[in-house]
C-alpha cells in the first residue's frame, strides 16, 4: 500500500494528540484537579490512530473504559473533552458522563463505556443502521483482551457475522485485564483465533506499528463497506501506566517488561521512520508535538475556566422530554 504523505502525517498527528492529551490528563488527575479515575491510552496510540484513519466522520465507533484515545482519533475536540473530564458544563456530556462515558454522537462516537463488554452489542446495532441505510458506513468496535471473555463479545460477533454487518472488531490486546495477565484469563495466545468461531477473518497485527494497524484496518474497512461483513483485528499493544492513572507500574508486571514495550514506542518509532523517509524531519515532528502541547494547554485552561454545570440541570437529559416528567414518574 503506497501511503501518501498527508496520510502518514495524519497518523502521526492522531497519535501525538492522544499522547499529549493523556499525559496531561493523567497529571491533572494525580493532582486531584480532574475528579474520579482516568484509564489512560498511553502506549496504545497506534491502535486508535491506525484504525480511525480509515474511518469517515459518519462511521461509527464503540469504545471502552479506556476511551479518550478512540475519541481523539475519531476527531474529538480537546476543549469539550477536558471540560468533560473536569465535570464542566461545556463538556461533551455537559459534565454528566466524565471520562468513562465521554461521547460525541456527531462524530459517530457512541461513548466510552464503563461496562467491560458493554460496547460490542451496541456496535452491532450501529452497523445494522449502516447496512439499512446502504451508504457504506461502518462501525469500529474496540474492546480489550480482558473483555474478550465477556459473553456479550461472543454474541455480538455471532450476530455481526450472521447478518454480514459492517463491523470491524478491534481487540486491543494490551496483555492485561486490569492486573491479570492474559495467560491467566484465557488459554489462547491470539484473541484473533476466535474469529473462526463466527466464520469471519481474524488478523493479528503489531499494535505498536501504526502503519501495520492502518493497513489491516484499511482492508477490513474496505471489506465491510462493500458488504463483505465483519472482521476481527487483534492489535498487540501495551499500556505504559497502571490500569488507572499515571503511576508507572506495580507488582503484577515487571519494570523490564514495561521497558521492552516502551522501547518500541509507536510514536517515536514512527517519527523516526517519517524522518528517514523524508516525510517529516525530527525537528518538524518536535514542532508538531510542541503545537499539540500548547493546544492541550489551551484546552486545559479553557476547561478549568469554564463554568460548572448548574445543579438545576441535574434532572435534565434523563428523558427526551420536558424535565418536569423526569422526576420519578410522578
Amino acid at each position, binding site marked *: 500500500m503506497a501511503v501518501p504523505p498527508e496520510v502518514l502525517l495524519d497518523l502521526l498527528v492522531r497519535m501525538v494528540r492522544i499522547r499529549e492529551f493523556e499525559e496531561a490528563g493523567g497529571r491533572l488527575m494525580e493532582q486531584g484537579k480532574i475528579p474520579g479515575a482516568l484509564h489512560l491510552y498511553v502506549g496504545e496510540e497506534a491502535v486508535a490512530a491506525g484504525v480511525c484513519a480509515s474511518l469517515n466522520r459518519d462511521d461509527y465507533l464503540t469504545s471502552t473504559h479506556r476511551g479518550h484515545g478512540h475519541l481523539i482519533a475519531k476527531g474529538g475536540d480537546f476543549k469539550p473533552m477536558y471540560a468533560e473530564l473536569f465535570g464542566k458544563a461545556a463538556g461533551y456530556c455537559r459534565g454528566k458522563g466524565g471520562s468513562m462515558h465521554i461521547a460525541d454522537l456527531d462524530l459517530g462516537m457512541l461513548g466510552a463505556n464503563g461496562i467491560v463488554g458493554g460496547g460490542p452489542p451496541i456496535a452491532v446495532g450501529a452497523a445494522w443502521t449502516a447496512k439499512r441505510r446502504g451508504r457504506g458506513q461502518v462501525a469500529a468496535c474496540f474492546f480489550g483482551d480482558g473483555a474478550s471473555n465477556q459473553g456479550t463479545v461472543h*454474541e455480538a460477533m455471532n450476530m455481526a457475522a450472521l447478518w454480514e454487518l459492517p463491523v470491524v472488531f478491534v481487540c486491543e490486546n494490551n496483555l492485561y485485564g486490569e492486573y491479570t495477565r492474559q495467560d491467566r484469563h484465557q488459554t489462547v495466545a491470539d484473541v484473533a483465533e476466535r474469529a473462526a468461531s463466527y466464520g469471519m477473518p481474524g488478523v493479528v497485527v503489531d499494535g505498536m506499528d501504526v502503519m501495520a494497524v492502518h493497513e489491516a484496518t484499511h482492508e477490513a474497512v474496505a471489506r465491510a463497506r462493500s458488504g463483505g461483513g465483519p472482521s476481527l483485528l487483534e492489535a498487540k499493544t501495551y499500556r505504559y501506566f497502571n490500569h488507572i492513572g499515571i503511576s508507572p507500574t506495580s507488582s503484577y508486571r515487571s519494570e523490564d517488561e514495561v521497558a521492552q514495550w516502551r522501547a518500541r514506542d509507536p510514536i517515536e518509532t514512527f517519527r523516526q521512520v517519517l524522518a528517514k523517509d523524508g516525510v517529516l524531519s525530527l525537528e518538524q515532528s518536535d514542532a508538531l508535538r510542541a503545537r499539540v502541547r500548547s493546544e492541550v494547554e489551551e484546552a486545559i485552561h479553557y476547561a478549568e475556566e469554564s463554568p460548572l454545570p448548574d445543579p438545576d440541570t441535574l434532572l435534565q437529559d434523563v428523558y427526551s*422530554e420536558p424535565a418536569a416528567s423526569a422526576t420519578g414518574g410522578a
Partner: protein
Amino acid sequence: MTTAAVRQANYREAINEALRGEIERDPDVFLAGEDVAGHEGSFGASAGLLAAFGPERVVDTPISESGIIGMAVGAAATGLRPVVEVMFIDFIGVCMDQVLNQLAKMKYMFGGKARLPVVVRTTCGAGVRVAAQHSQSLEAMLCHIPGLKVVMPATPYDAKGLLISAIRDDNPVVFIEHKLLYRIQGEVPEEPYTLPLGVAEVRRPGTDLTIVSWSAMVHEALAAADELAQRGIHAEVIDLRTLSPLDAHTVLTSVHKTHRVVVAHEAVKFGGFGGEVAALIAEEAIDYLDAPVVRVGAPFSPVPFSPVLEDAWLPNRRQIVEAALRTMPARTGA
C-alpha cells in the same frame, strides 16, 4: 373514546395491529427478537409481519438477549426505532446490563445528546404451568431504573394505543404483556390511535375504597369490586397502565375521595412496585386515610410448577376482597 368503527379484537390482535401499523408508517421502525419473524412470535403477536414487511423489518435473531438489546441501543442511537422482544420477562436477567446501564442511561450519560426510541416488548405472568423461570412479574426492577418507562396494559384497547405511543415515544419503553391476556377480547378501533403514557385509567368508579392495580390483576380487581358491590361496598378500580412514570395524581385523587386503599399486583409482594404506590400514599395522603394501606401480592417464593401450588401462589380476587374488608370500619376497629 369516540371512534367510528369500534369492533372487537383480542389483546394479541391489538398488539399485532399496533406493530403492523407502525412498521408500515415509519420506515425506521423494525421488530427484532427470537422467532418473531418466521414463527410469528411465541404468542403469535407478530403474525403476518414477516410476510408483509420482509426480513429487514422483521428480524429473527440468535438466542442472544444481550446482543438483541445492545443492537436496539446501537440502532436507536444511530437513528432507527427498534422494537425488540425478550420472549419472557424472566429472561431479562440475561440482558439486564444492556437495559440498566446502556439503554436507560445513555441519554443522560451523554448529556442529553442521544435519543433512544426503543421499545422492549416482553411477557410476564404466572398461571400457565411453566414454573419458576417463565412466570415472573419483574416490573419492580425496571421501574427503579431512571431513563426507562414501564407500561403494562390490561385491555386490548390499551394494548394497541399504548404500544403505538411507546413506539412513537423518543424514550426507551419496556412494554410488558401478560400472557394470560392475549386471548381476552375488547373494543379495538381498526385505525391507529395513541394513548398517553403515564396516565392511569379509572376502570370503575367508586366511593368507599380504591383498588390500585395493573396488568392482568386489574381483571381480578374488577371481579373483586363486583363481589364487594354485592356487600354494599363501592370500590373504585384504578388501572395504572403505565407504572413509570406513575400517575400519582389519579391515585391520590381517588384516595382523597375514598380514604381506603388496596394495592394489588401479581408480583411477589415483598419489594414489589406495590410498595412504591403504598409509600406514595403514606407520604402524600396520609391525612385522608381511614385505614391501613393493604397490599395484595404473591408470597415470597419462586413460582411453583404444580397447579395446586401455583394456584395457591397466585394473588386473586378473593385476596383482594379480603384485603378490602380489612380496610373497612368493622375490621379496622378490631
